[in-house]
């Protein structure tokens, strides 16, 4: 057996990646394409790196407006900047 099926003393992953969800999303958008086995994990990694960036940006926007609560507008402006940056 090449790999460990279970990690000792840890049967539950704290932060699970919604693998089936990601696969489904990809399938739905690009039905003619196939996603490889661990590809969705990397997509999840990408999201994990994208979301905090967005959160940070929106937090900055909120603080600039001296609000205590994050609003839609803050997120919108943040999303514009971040999506543009992560266009690739």
């Amino acid at each position, binding site marked *: 057996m090449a790999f460990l099926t279970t990690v000792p003393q840890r049967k539950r992953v704290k932060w699970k990646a919604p693998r089936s969800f990601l696969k*489904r999303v990809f399938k739905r958008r690009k039905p003619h394409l196939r996603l490889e086995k661990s590809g969705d994990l*990397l997509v999840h990694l990408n999201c994990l790196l994208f979301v905090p960036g967005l959160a940070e940006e929106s937090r900055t926007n909120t603080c600039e407006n001296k609000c205590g609560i994050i609003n839609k507008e803050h997120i919108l402006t943040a999303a514009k900047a971040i999506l543009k940056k992560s266009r690739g």
Partner: protein
Amino acid sequence: MADPCPDSEPTPRTLLRRLLDTADPRTPRRPHRTGAGAQKTLLETPSPRRLRSQTKTTTRQWSYGAKSIGRLAHVQTSGHLEKQTPRTLLKNILLTAPESSILMPESVVRPAPAPQVVQSSRRKSSQGSLELQLPELEPPTTLAPGLLAPGRKKQRLRLSVFQQEVDQGLLVSHEPRGNADASSLTSSLNLTFATPLQPQSVRRPGLARKPPTRRTVDVGVFLQDLRDTDLAPPNIVLEDTQPFSQPLVGCSPSVHHSLPCPSQTEAEDARRTACHRTWSSGPGLQNNSPGKPGQFLTGTAEEVDAFALGFPTTSSSVPVEDGVQILQDGVGEEAENRIEDDALSVSDVKEATGVQEHTRAEEPEGHTEVTEAERSEADLSVEDEEPEGSSGIKDTSGRTASPELTSSIPEFLQTKQLHQFLEPALLPSATVLSSEPQLAKPPRPRTTGPRPRQDPYKAGLSHYAKLFSFYAKMPMEKKALEMVEKCLDKYFQHLCDDLEVFAAHAGRKTVKPEDLELLMRRQGLVTNQVSLHVLVERHLPLEYRQLLIPCAFSGNSVFPAQ
């Protein structure tokens, strides 16, 4: 030697030292003097330290004693009686004998100098030159006990007490404790005594361990707390302490409970397989409605009122048709076309018209909440009015329509819902209708198409939205969360497009991890300094890391295989 800083307590040791240092070693044997001198130097080096640090622990002395004992043994074994002078003997005593001996200080010390003295006396007889020295040395030795008393009272006491106790045959362990009163020295000595003995816990049975106090869990209070927490739905989504709790898939079932009446009608609606699609989305969306009925109600008050008027009057087809017409006007021509098509396939004309609206409603998204609110209103009020089994359909369609339904058609009240109902049924496939009811959940007729797209899609997005709220560390509005979900949607779109382009560029139809890496490189996440593996290690848990990063295992195997 340097002048010994006259400590407040001239001990016999210091006195002896002084004597030894000051007095000339009148040994005819010059060569041996070097040995004596060496010993003297040995003595001198520790002596100033001892003098200065008398208050310090005696461990050093012990160590010196140990070392010197070794040397002394060597010296004694090697050194013949002839070489040893009383001076050297005394020096050896000073070296070896600690200030406070271990067990029988007096007995050890006294006999030690005694035989030494005896030997020296013997030697004295042989070496007449030593005679002079002896009397010098002897008085100090005799003086020593006398001087000890005023000088080192503590030690003296200790020794005396010690000796008494030893004579009495008490355990050694007790002695240091009995002796140790205040001085740190004594305490340090006690430590040295105590170490070989049993641990204190055993010796002191009084130091009993407290039994662990365990409070029995008050189940009643616990349950009440649970209930209390359930009753308070937070209006504002606060950040989670954990970024990923269970994804909120259970929103649908919870909504079921909130609307038991519609569910009953839905149960009747087995044939309405299409409804399943909208159904699932409906409850999911209706989840929002209780939270924001007010907002939407106020927004669409006018339209609601318009239909509310029509609603209570009749549930007949007349208002329906009117509504349909209005809808058609509002919707457009496409809807009409579809409506016609749908109408043909559907038995109920009303429903057909309703479906038309539905289809039209589907396309524009976004005002789901409004429609939902209306629908929820309509549902509750309509139920009793619905004579047919289509009422159930209506409910489900109403709900299902909510996602697709556009707020632009807020007229979709109870009557309309009937029609809306049909639309989802018609859209996916009429053929599926028959097979649908047999599928997993009878109360929820299923559709393959939009339903998985909406509910699990939203569930998955909410998974990341929760992560967002965790990283934001600030309270957020629910609208903001929806905005986040929209952003994520767009992000996924971009992602998939890019991956497609990359795969096509490589002439592949499968998206491989290399494409992902290229994407991240283009995004600036992976650089020459930061590789993909580093990011994987940082952000993903071990289980995923194992799957992604090839690792060598025993048996000449690598997993995952490259």
